[in-house]
């Protein structure tokens, strides 16, 4: 899922200053699961904005709505009436959601209330970790299902750097060294010979380096 984190309230208040009717718009998918932008967080955000408005005399009139997916026009339509009524939208969707809303409502200011962080998993209660850098050409088969592009701070494809110590990363001892995990995993599944091969330079053209990506499925187009 996409994992995001809320911006600070003072930062959001600063962004919204000057607007009166504000719609706080939540999203029922990824950001709900990672507890950043679902119905509950929309409600908390709306309360925080009302308190800030009262304290600073900003005149905010805050309304709330959460739709199933901000990244899908079918669901965005369900919010059309509320968005039209508002002076500005504070989206608690991910970066894709914010842009989808902004594109659909060309004359409406739409602001991001979250910082979209990464594609990851719920590691344990209250902890999310990044697993995929969306490089566009998956190499997981080569590395025992552990991604060095994402989980090694240097994206190394041919083994650990010299700074890997006691299974920890040189950048941050709180972080596991991806290469120690890859080594152990390949050993466990009897595929250590994969590491002997010199991996060629990655073709980054499939990643964001090649520009924003588009997938067209002719079989699904109308």
């Amino acid at each position, binding site marked *: 899922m996409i994992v995001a984190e809320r911006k600070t309230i003072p930062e959001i208040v600063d962004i919204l200053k000057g607007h009166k009717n504000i719609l706080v718009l939540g999203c029922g998918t990824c950001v709900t699961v990672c507890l950043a932008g679902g119905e509950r967080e929309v409600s908390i955000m709306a309360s925080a904005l009302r308190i800030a408005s009262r304290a600073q005399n900003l005149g905010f009139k805050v309304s709330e709505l959460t739709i199933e997916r901000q990244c899908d026009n079918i669901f965005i339509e369900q919010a059309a009436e509320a968005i039209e009524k508002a002076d500005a939208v504070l989206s608690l969707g991910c970066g894709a959601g914010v842009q989808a809303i902004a594109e659909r409502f060309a004359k409406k200011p739409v602001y991001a209330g979250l910082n979209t962080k990464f594609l990851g998993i719920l590691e344990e209660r209250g902890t999310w970790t990044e697993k995929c850098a969306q490089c566009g050409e998956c190499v997981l088969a080569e590395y025992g299902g552990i991604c060095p592009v994402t989980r090694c701070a240097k994206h*190394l494809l041919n083994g650990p750097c010299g700074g890997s110590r006691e299974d920890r990363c040189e950048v941050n001892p709180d972080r596991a060294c991806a290469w120690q995990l890859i080594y152990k995993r390949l050993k466990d599944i009897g595929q250590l010979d994969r590491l002997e091969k010199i991996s060629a*330079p990655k073709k980054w053209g499939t990643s964001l380096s090649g520009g924003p990506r588009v997938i067209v499925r002719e079989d699904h187009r109308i």
Partner: protein
Amino acid sequence: MAGDGEIRKNEMKPDSKLASKIEGKDFIVTAEYVPPAGTSAAAVEAGAVYLRDGLTAVNAADNVNGIAMSSLAASLALMKAGVEPVYQLVTRDRNRIALESDLLGAASLGIKNVLCLTGYHQSLMGCPESANVFDIDSIQLIAAVKKMNEGSLIDGRKIDGGFSMLIGAVANPSLKPLDLNMIRLRKKIAAGASFIQTQAVFDVEAFKLWLEAARKEGLTERAAILAGVWPLTGADEAKLLAKNYTDIDIPAGVIARLEKAGDAEAQKKEGLAICAETVKKLKGLPGLRGIHIISPANEAAVPQVMAALK
């Protein structure tokens, strides 16, 4: 076995002093020079004064602990000062385009040795807010330079005019497990590294285990291993290195010995004494071809370390 430091038919033979020393049998001494965070080529020349006698070549470090004069410019300044440079190149800051472009430039200026590294993460060298590149890793860089020695760029185009660079790489003997460490070393040599400079050795017994593993695999025959040694300037430096860099393994006993030595001057002397003892223990180890002296901003210590070889 092709591809491992041997020169192929269509490959230009590197003609550096370091290359011919590796061909021979002599004990090799190299050192590392860290360029200043400034513009003065004269500063490089002043450092080079200590780096001439008895040394085969001197590395020009590539932005190792903060933004500094480029290793390419520093290599040129070393060359002008009569020192053969080993041009260090990290993949952290440059993509394959910039790396190969700089390598062509380096060759055109007469630089004949290159050390291929990934480099410390930018957060360890004082620029945590910088984006990193890591388009390719050190092993891929070694392979790319080897391909340049064979006449081609990474995009397949031919190099106009000759290109010949002796390729070196680094290893950290304290990287565990040993099996994984050896995989990495094997790959570096298979990719084309002719010499390997190691991270500083403070525990000779631990280093011997690593060297012996490399020797058993025949790796010490395929590439010249140069053991890193570091004349510590005092307990403060040792503690700082141990705290900030996970690739530098300084035993607590070494730090205690430095502390016990007394004031700053006495600690500096003790650091040199420890280094000299290490050099003496290293010299003559089967499979070891030389030493690599690492003494950032302390070039004056290099001749003092070398005195231990006599």
